[in-house]
């Protein structure tokens, strides 16, 4: 019974944490709810980690078997575990980067055998000599998959373009569930807030810490203020709930607020590696931003650094996993190599390509990879000959009348055919936006012509973001999902079609979220391009 109690406790904590997170997301930006959810998620992450570690210890200690112990020792000596081998084979939900990393030569080192206190979860679980999980571990597989899915949904890819600026991020995890986090939140036609951070530890703790921090960030960023002020507010919430002890350390984070029209960046860091400003052909310049990580000192004050981009300049954020990546001979990648890569970055190479090359290059070193590696780059292209790009985005504001979605659907289809023809997503996007606009006009604004529906779209190279905003109270996506899960279906003809708009959005988008702020309710939809050409 006791053996079953650990996975049961971990599962209950995971589910409670996830429910709290989704509930708070539905009511963003109610700060109390966000902070409460952050607290619950963090507590859940710590407790789930504890339950998992306890379970693994029991799995090792309670059933000694000389045969399997011997086999285990042999496997550990060999240090080789084929990806997908044994009980862990079901973890196909891993992010592609993690799968790629795990399938490479560095895979054994990326799954540390010593499950230290900061590395619970999939990366830290030992197998017995026959490739089976220790007793009591298998029931955790479903919860781990849930944790991976939650983290994936909370951290969609970043590749967006705003005016003359472009924001791109790439991340590769060392374990199934990573501790790095990044985000980009478009605040209006000109401003975007970017975030990068590194939660101590990986596994289940990270799976819940990362959504909690993203939740807190997305909540706080909508309240306004510069990055230093944002970090201060987040720090007070995190220090107030004892995040340092829950997370196993302070949380390094960097926040930038970009005004794409002015080409101006305001940045503040909390114990995060100092970012670089890079101009092709020149030595990269580091932006100093020393301060304590979040959650350590309630009174910590952070400082904004403001600068204007020169045309062609790039702002590069990274996590310490990039610098500390260690080669087979113990040789750390280090700042010198990183700065050399930055200095050699050709003017005409897009950030996405440069980042992939750098990450691939690190992997070719067959490094002993123990940390996630994340890069986030802001490129400023205005005024540079031959590289001026028009805004790839558009907004509409229409009165709430029946059929108001038609005009937007027609113009959006035309825009997509012009701007994103290779994506293969035009029809999906038009259908989703039309449904969201129809819902906003009818259910959000009650077809009140005095109230408007606002639509904003932004294109990146591989991702498109669309926001549809109304002035109503909104709806609870959780209720929709639970109704759908329950398989509810209306047999009454009059009810046919009710809820189909959301169903189509759910099916056709790669990711969507509903948020609420003082100005109304917003459905935010993300679409990935199907075009796989480099």
């Amino acid at each position, binding site marked *: 019974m006791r053996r079953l109690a650990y996975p049961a406790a971990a599962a209950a904590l995971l589910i409670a944490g996830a429910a709290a997170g989704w509930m708070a997301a539905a009511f963003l930006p109610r700060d109390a709810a966000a902070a409460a959810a952050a607290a619950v998620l963090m507590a859940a992450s710590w407790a789930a980690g504890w339950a998992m570690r306890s379970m693994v210890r029991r799995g090792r200690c309670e059933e000694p078997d000389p045969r399997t112990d011997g086999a285990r020792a042999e496997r550990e000596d060999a240090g080789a575990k084929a990806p997908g081998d044994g009980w862990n084979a079901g973890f196909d939900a891993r992010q592609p980067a993690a799968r790629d990393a795990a399938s490479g030569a560095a895979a054994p080192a990326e799954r540390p055998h010593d499950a230290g206190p900061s590395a619970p979860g999939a990366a830290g679980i030992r197998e017995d000599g026959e490739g089976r999980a220790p007793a009591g571990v298998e029931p955790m597989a479903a919860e781990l998959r849930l944790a991976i899915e939650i983290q994936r949904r909370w951290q969609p890819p970043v590749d967006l373009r705003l005016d003359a600026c472009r924001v791109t991020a790439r991340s590769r995890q060392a374990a199934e569930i990573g501790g790095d986090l990044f985000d980009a939140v478009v605040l209006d036609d000109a401003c975007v807030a970017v975030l990068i951070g590194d939660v101590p530890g990986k596994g289940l703790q990270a799976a819940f810490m990362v959504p909690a921090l993203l939740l807190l960030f997305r909540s706080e960023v909508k309240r306004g203020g510069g990055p230093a002020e944002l970090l201060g507010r987040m720090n007070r919430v995190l220090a107030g709930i004892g995040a340092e002890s829950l997370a196993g350390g302070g949380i390094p984070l960097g926040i930038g607020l970009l005004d794409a029209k002015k080409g101006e960046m305001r940045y503040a860091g909390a114990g995060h590696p100092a970012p670089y400003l890079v101009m092709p052909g020149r030595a990269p310049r580091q932006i100093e931003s020393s301060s304590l990580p979040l959650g350590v000192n309630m009174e910590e004050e952070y400082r904004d650094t403001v600068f204007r981009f020169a045309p062609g300049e790039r702002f590069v954020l990274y996590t310490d996993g990039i610098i500390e990546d260690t080669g087979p001979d113990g040789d750390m990648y280090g700042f010198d190599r990183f700065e050399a890569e930055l200095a050699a970055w050709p003017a005409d190479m897009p950030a996405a390509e440069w980042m992939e090359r750098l990450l691939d290059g690190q992997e070719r070193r067959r490094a002993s990879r123990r940390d996630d590696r994340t890069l986030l780059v802001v490129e400023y292209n205005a005024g540079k000959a031959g590289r001026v790009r028009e805004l790839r985005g558009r907004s509409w504001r229409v009165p709430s*009348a*029946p*059929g*108001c*979605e*038609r005009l937007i*659907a*027609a113009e959006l289809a035309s825009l997509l055919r012009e701007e994103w023809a290779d994506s293969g997503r035009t*029809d*999906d996007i*038009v*259908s989703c936006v*039309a*449904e969201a606009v*129809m819902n906003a006009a009818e259910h959000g604004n009650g077809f009140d012509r005095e109230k408007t529906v606002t639509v904003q779209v932004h294109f990146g190279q591989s991702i498109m973001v669309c926001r549809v905003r109304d002035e109503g109270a909104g709806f609870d996506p959780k209720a929709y999902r639970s109704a759908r899960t329950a398989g509810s279906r209306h047999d009454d*003809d009059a009810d*046919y*079609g009710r809820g*189909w*708009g959301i*169903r*189509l959005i759910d*099916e056709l988008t790669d990711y969507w979220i509903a948020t609420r702020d003082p100005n109304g309710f917003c459905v935010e939809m993300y679409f990935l391009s199907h075009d796989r050409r480099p």
Partner: protein
Amino acid sequence: MDSMLELSVVPFDSGLSITLKGDLDQQAEPKIRSILNWEEGLGDGRRYLILNLHEVNFINSAGMALLIRIARTGRKRDYHTFICGASAHYQKLFRMVGLTEYVMLYPDDYAAMQRIEALESGVTGAGQV
């Protein structure tokens, strides 16, 4: 906003073929009802309804709900509904919302008519579409 839908009806021996042109959305219902009150059946012993969507550019969830209501009514009023000419995208959406439980999808009028002729000549058991 007025409906952006135009309709043309071509009766044949055992049914009706309706070609729709424009947008199929919540404003389409009164327009379709003006030429066919499907809740009364097709009339004159007709048993097949072909809806040609080849020239429909836009269909939203309300339009799909309307199609399902028309098709479901056919079960009570003894007519079968065939949809033809829908793009691959809308065929995908029809499957998502369950429209294909009530109608068969055909690439064009000709294919739908061939199927109807087969049904009429008894190649397939009555009632199977």
